[in-house]
């Protein structure tokens, strides 16, 4: 089963290398970018299903990247990670639909977040919204179990 393609964005080359090595088993392909401008180039050329992005980078920060993508109607799951002191940027990032957040340097839970993000990104292209009637019907079926 296809896992999906992952994009890692960070201006620290060593960190990118480490992350790529740790996450190899979780994605079909892993692309790297050292700042926001490179990230947008990769996203315009490749099919990316999840982005893991440092929030504070030179040239173009993570918020500017996600903002650009959302303007292009690209809802790829975006995971931000940051050390402390970027509080304003994190709140700003939240406005553009961040999928999840991780804390540097531990990046606890990154594997689970990547799995979830890739799964969401791979199925995200087609979302069929059920009608209200269909939703209510499903609720009723579930509620019936409570009466047993």
């Amino acid at each position: 089963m296809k896992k999906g393609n992952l994009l890692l964005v960070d201006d620290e080359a060593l960190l990118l290398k480490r992350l790529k090595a740790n996450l190899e088993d979780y994605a079909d392909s892993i692309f790297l970018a050292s700042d926001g401008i490179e990230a947008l180039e990769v996203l315009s050329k490749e099919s990316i299903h999840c982005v893991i992005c440092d929030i504070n980078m030179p040239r173009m920060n993570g918020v500017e990247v996600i903002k650009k993508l959302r303007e292009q109607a690209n809802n790829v799951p975006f995971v931000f990670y940051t050390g402390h002191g970027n509080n304003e940027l994190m709140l700003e990032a939240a406005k553009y639909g961040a999928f999840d957040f991780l804390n540097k340097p531990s990046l606890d839970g990154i594997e689970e977040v990547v799995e979830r993000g890739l799964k969401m990104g791979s199925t995200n292209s087609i979302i069929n919204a059920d009608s209200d009637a269909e939703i209510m019907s499903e609720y009723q079926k579930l509620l019936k179990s409570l009466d047993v």
Partner: protein
Amino acid sequence: MTVIICDANFSFTLSVAKAFEGQGISCVQVGTGKECQLKIFQGKFDALIIDINTQSHSAVEVIKYVKAHKLKTRIIVTLEKAGQLEAMDLNVETLKRLGVYNMVTKPIDPEQLVKLVLTKIGFDSDQTVYANEEEIVANADEMCLLETPEIVIENIAILDYYVHTTGYIYHRVIKRGEKAAGQIDQKIFYKAKDRTLFIQFMNKIVGKMTPDEEIKPEDKFINLKSLADTYITESYTNGLNPKLVEEGKKLCQNMFALLDKEKRLKELMKMYQEKTPHHFAELFLVSFFSTIIAKSLDWNSQRTTEMVALGGLLHDIGLYRLNPEITRKLRADMTIEEEEIFKTHPLESVKILREMTQIAEPVAQIVYQHHETINGEGFPNQLSSVRIYPLAKIVSVADAFTSLLIQSQKPPIEALKMFVQNRQNIERYDANLIKSLITGFVKESK
């Protein structure tokens, strides 16, 4: 030793005088402030007991006289009823500054008054000399009621535990490091300043209870709830600190473990009967239902479940920085300006959480976005469905359901049906999350 008592009620002063004379202490009785001040001017007294309602030179005038002349007279004020000070525009701090040593509310046993004078028990326990270590003087807000006393009785005490005897006096019944000698029929209290230590203790106890098959699910739930309420009270009144944040995480781990073990939610909530719980109890339920929803999702993990549990506990912490006259109102009763202020509480909450570096970013984002709704009509940023942080959507559903549960005062299952059948909730909340909430209540199939 000589004591003077000033009170217009002569039968009271007579009974107190007799109690002192029984201890070999002479006691002068007067009825007005003027008489009292004159007697103090004429002679030396070791203690003055004065009724706050004293007339013809008020009690405050007499107290100021004693202070101004630097007399070594210990002053005890008596009140007719609680709240009397506030009605007279006074408070405990003002009286302390004037040199009042202690305060009692009638009715009071004259023997207790004698004890207060003899044992020199005052407001500030750090400076007093106790005749015996078993009694302390505390305001009601300095003491916490123990909601699950059975736990305390069964284990070696990690704190001193007290029963309330009269006025501001609490009597220690279990000493730290010891076990209760037997049943205690009265309500048990501990000092509010020991609350964090108590939370630490309860986290360990609840952690041990969860895998124990002998303990009923509803008893486990009650103890978890009591722990969460205590945690929330401490966080919301005294603020977060690193130790408390860590205990919060353990609490959420305990919540996760309990729901992992006991999947029959209806069994767990059998004992839930609160009709009008205070706001802190609501916060526990938001956390609890958030955990239920998260655990029912196919993408559930322990990490995400604990994040939503902690986000649920802390989601309204910023509300307490706002004017309580606004936050006490229902939203429907707020003016436009008041509602604008109310809508700032998610950002206020985040500012508080940012002071604690141990709070992970997901928890801060949950708190920030828990009032966003998928139709874009939420706040603070009117985000629509795809833009809202997925974990925040979980707490959003739990918060809305908890509000309905509390306001409707229906049993949980009936409230759930009402919530689900409200078509407005389809527009506001993610349908998959509502299904997960229902799934949490459905009996586990065999």
